[in-house]
């Protein structure tokens, strides 16, 4: 691409625009949640035969709240344990466990979330718990993998310098290693959360109410309008959170 005199302002403009993307998506999400019952004519066109056009059993904001709670709980578990595990296996005492954990991280991704969910139900019963456990397990792997990759990718000279400056092990970790690995760790968190927002819809099949409810109800009753309503909300939520995390990632420390 030729770099003209206008290249830089244009780039700045694009960056500025990108900073607004989360607000745009999340705004659309709120708008959709509010306007859903008002757009009857649209649903009429989508599902001409349906008796009821808008999902009624709970408001979309309630479902959205439950969905966010489910994914948030799973993300909290995933991020705390995943990063802790990644840190543990990159320290001297835990290094023996590194190959096993790394291998496990790649192997775990092969477990289909439906199957994990199905296995969690016999152990934990129906409701919120199995879906949170399934999402945590499924989301753990990108976080662990990226934490390990991020910490291992820190420039060896920077670590040597940190030691030679007289930083303690804790200071090295918090002031040098984690900040330097942070963009990569955050990328893993982003993957994990975005995938889980979509996957959480499966919770509706095991009695955990969330934005998957309209989808399941729509499939069962052959009502496309319901499906579309649930899918729209989930997609907007995923795009909003994804762009939010991507803005954060870009603003981290790289200039």
């Amino acid at each position, binding site marked *: 691409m030729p770099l003209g005199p206008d290249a830089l302002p244009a780039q700045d403009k694009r960056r500025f625009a990108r900073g607004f993307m989360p607000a745009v998506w999340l705004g659309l999400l709120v708008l959709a949640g509010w306007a859903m019952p008002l757009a009857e004519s649209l649903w009429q066109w989508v599902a001409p035969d349906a008796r009821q056009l808008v999902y009624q059993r709970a408001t979309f904001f309630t479902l959205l709240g439950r969905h966010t709670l489910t994914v948030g709980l799973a993300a909290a578990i995933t991020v705390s344990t995943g990063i802790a595990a990644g840190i543990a296996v990159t320290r001297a005492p835990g290094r023996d466990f590194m190959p096993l954990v790394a291998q496990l991280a790649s192997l775990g991704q092969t477990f289909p979330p439906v199957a994990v969910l199905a296995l969690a139900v016999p152990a934990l019963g129906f409701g919120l718990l199995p879906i949170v456990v399934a999402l945590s397990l499924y989301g753990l792997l990108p976080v662990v993998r990226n934490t390990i990759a991020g910490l291992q990718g820190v420039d060896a000279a920077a670590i040597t310098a940190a030691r*030679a*400056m007289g930083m303690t092990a804790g200071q090295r970790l918090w002031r*040098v290693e984690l900040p330097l690995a942070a963009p990569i760790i955050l990328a893993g968190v982003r993957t994990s959360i975005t995938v889980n927002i979509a996957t959480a819809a499966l919770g509706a099949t095991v009695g955990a109410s969330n934005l998957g409810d309209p989808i399941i109800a729509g499939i069962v009753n052959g009502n496309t309008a319901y499906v579309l309503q649930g899918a729209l909300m989930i997609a907007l939520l995923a795009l909003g959170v994804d762009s939010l995390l991507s803005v954060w990632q870009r603003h981290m420390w790289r200039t």
Partner: protein
Amino acid sequence: MIELYNVSKRFGDTLAVDDISFTVPEGKFCALVGTSGCGKSTTLRMINRLTAHTGGEIVLDGQAINAYDPVQLRRRIGYAIQDTGLFPHWNVARNIATVPRLLKWPAGRVRQRVDELMQMLGLPAAEFASKYPHQLSGGQAQRVGVARALAADPYMLLMDEPFGALDPITRETLQTMLSGLQARLHKTVVLVTHDMDEALRLADHLVVMREGKIVQQGSPLALLQKPESEFVNALLGGLERGLKQASLTRVRDHMTPLGAMLPAHSRIPDRYTLRQALSVMLRDHCERVTVVDQHDVPVGELSLRKLVKKARPEKDDASGS
């Protein structure tokens, strides 16, 4: 003052450093030279306990280094390396402030110290303070590395091939800057290098290592005049030893007053070394040059005959100038 007594380092079955002893008095500049893998970097890293020594004793400021807490010890020793090891997520000012902040200096004092160091190292604060390491050239990054090493006014300075990755011109500029700093600050410095010219130029004391052992140590001049082995001779440049010796002496110490003869056409500044003077003579096909001071005013002259005679330095030159 740093003293090493019969220090060894064993990695598994190999002896990386084998029974070495040397002393660097307060405010002196010592260079460890040798081919790669001779144990010079390991020796350096044992001084700030990045690597633990397995035998002998290292004494810093009158106390064995094992008696210090390693973290406290390292905060008293500046350390600069070839890869700079600058923290990429911190700007220049924050990088320089690393050790003062670890020592919990008050913010105002830290800021003042950073400004002072940036000026000392020729990095205008207005331009560089908020730049990030990836925005710096190799030479600038290395200046920041040295500033960071000096930040908390350490007891001594360790440098591991700090200029090894720089182009020759930048390297020379930084060497000049370093010797200027050393003249001002009188730090005890241990420098590891494989560049013999750099070592001869900067050091008061040379330690030549080979396969973990010290093969010879002494002042640059002593080594140049009397290499004890073919290895040291080769390291000192063999046939070019004469030139290296000439590069240890400055023109201003050996010029003669301006005579009755017309001043020679070629001019050289009085801070040049005899080696540079010889080079100018060869370039200009003349046997006589005019020596000028920093204001370009002729202050003396130097002839080839005089140069050849004086290039064999007298005793009082042995301390280096």
